[in-house]
């Protein structure tokens, strides 16, 4: 793995990351790299450490050892809001929206790190504050349209369907104008139709914004359909890494998912 200062034109480099808590090793020397404008999937059985990985990248956990580099910055030394400031946005497995606020209010939170209206300028209504707010609302409306939620901007986030709420999460992440998007189980709990809609959206994002997308997922169909590269984790360790077709045929992967002595169908 490339440990020198030059990560070439790789967008995100995860380098030998190890996370331990309460006697459990959640991640054990995991390494992989995400190429620019690529969709990179991380898969693995439950408990394999996928969400832990996301939490390390977005700054919620500090690893015991290893490094995570994004555009020359060492993410493991930064606080979550600083990582957000670098352009790293994510969605959450269990949907972390403000249920009793409107969709628009939720989207506007994503604009926080891009604007500057503070405790004095906002309260005294310095011209800067309403101007920024108008721009933010316009941009949020644009992104809502892109995601297909234009008609739901004024709805309470808690009243929406599960699929819609997941899309609000994606929209909120997009409002951060990210340079790296982390999607945590974007189609978990969705039926076939909703999954197809989300897959379509992810492809749209990749094609329009040309940003790298790292996604954690269980749904093999989605992963094989849209991922450029797949990393497989099992018990916190990387057991495979490569293009989807190659990973699918890997015997280690089959064993991790299906148990020993059986072949994948």
């Amino acid at each position: 793995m490339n440990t020198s200062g030059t990560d070439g034109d790789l967008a995100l480099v995860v380098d030998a990351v190890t996370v331990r808590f309460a006697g459990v090793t959640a991640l054990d020397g995991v390494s992989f790299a995400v190429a620019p404008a690529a969709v990179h999937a991380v898969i693995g059985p439950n408990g394999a450490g996928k969400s832990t990985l996301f939490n390390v990248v977005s700054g919620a956990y500090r690893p015991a050892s290893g490094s995570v580099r994004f555009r020359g910055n060492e993410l493991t030394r930064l606080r979550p809001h600083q990582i957000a400031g670098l352009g790293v946005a994510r969605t959450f497995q269990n949907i972390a929206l403000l249920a009793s606020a409107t969709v628009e209010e939720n989207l506007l939170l994503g604009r926080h790190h891009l604007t500057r209206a503070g405790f004095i300028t906002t309260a005294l209504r310095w011209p800067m504050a309403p101007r920024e707010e108008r721009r933010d609302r316009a941009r949020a409306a644009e992104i809502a349209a892109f995601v297909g939620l234009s008609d739901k901007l004024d709805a309470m986030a808690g009243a929406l369907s599960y699929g819609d709420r997941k899309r609000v999460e994606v929209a909120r992440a997009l409002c951060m104008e990210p340079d790296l998007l982390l999607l945590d189980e974007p189609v978990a709990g969705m039926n076939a139709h909703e999954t197809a809609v989300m897959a379509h959206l992810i492809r749209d994002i990749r094609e329009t914004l040309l940003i790298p997308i790292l996604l954690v997922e269980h749904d093999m169909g989605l992963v094989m359909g849209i991922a450029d590269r797949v990393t497989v984790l099992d018990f916190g360790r990387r057991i495979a890494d490569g293009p989807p077709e190659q990973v699918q045929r890997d015997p280690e992967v089959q064993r991790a998912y299906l148990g020993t002595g059986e072949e994948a169908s």
Partner: protein
Amino acid sequence: MSEPRVDLAVDEPAGLGLPDVAAATARRRRSPARIPAALAGLVVALAVPLYVDAFWLQLGLFAFAGAVAALGLGLLLGQAGQLSLGHSFFVAVGAYGYTVLAAEGGTIGVSQQAGLALPPVVAAVLAVLLAGVAGLLFSPIAARLRGIYLGIASLGLVFVGLHVLFNAEPLTGGFNGRNVPGFTLPGLRFDSTSGEALYVLGVPFGREEKLWYLGLAITAGTYLYRRNLDRGRPGRALRAVRDHELVAGIMGVPVTRYKAYAFLISSMYAGLGGVLLALAFGRIVPETFGVALAVEYLVMVVIGGLATPAGAVAGAVFVACLPAVLERYAAVLPGLAPAGAQGVSPAVAARFVFGAAVVGLLLFEPGGVTAVGDRLRRGVRRALNRARGP
């Protein structure tokens, strides 16, 4: 003892379980009745001193003092979700800060009392800043503590503060307290002086009348400031911190810094409330600034509505006025005994009401009285719509 457990939940929501300000604000903005209603209220408030006697004006001043402090606590608890029971500490900093800065130093009776004899306006501003600094100093500790630990740690602040107030006699006058210097604006004395009578529209304007307008102006200003904060970017960020602290950070909100801002502003509000409170009392004693006062502010924001600035003001008016109103009409109200006699005195009755209101509202309508008002309004509108027919 076994290995300490560690908390792994990243996206576990916290919050207060409140109907959010954002939605309520969005709805209210569109209601056309708002502005005329607000103007009417303002006209009434301006006219009050012309018709009402000193007792009610004095009460009003206490209400204003409570409102300003409650607006600050509402910001800290309702918007930022930080349960701090130390609010009375910062109120004390404001009250005693103003008193010491504005008083004439020297010997009173047998004791030395400190005073810088600054102009009251300057003293008031400095006292507020002092309270803000105290809030800033406390905030790094506060930021490291989980919500519930903060509630109890802030109680400690109150007790330490009380101890200092009782013991720092040259500054605070100790147990017996200190007189509060009267307020003056350049060219206008607030305290009544003989031979100097100000008349407005035929009504004599004494201390209570002038202080009423001062309190009204300050309350209106702080109300608008808080309302603008709530509606804009800072309010959104604070609510994100309240409901999902870790997620807020990941969304780009510098959580520790925003908690510090919340403490700074709320303690400045508390300090300003303390200045008004000192002016309302005329003489302050340390006993006032204990846990009971901190609980009182909490009661104000819970009854009025934790999340909205209007709720803070409404709650403050209710809490400030109820005991006095009950006392005034104790003779006619059943079940109330006059002060000193056996039975339930008006002050005690008021406390029962407050406790019951807190329990009841949190059980059934955590949005407080303003949320109840919202529901009634919506219910009325729905009934009217139905009555209009298909």
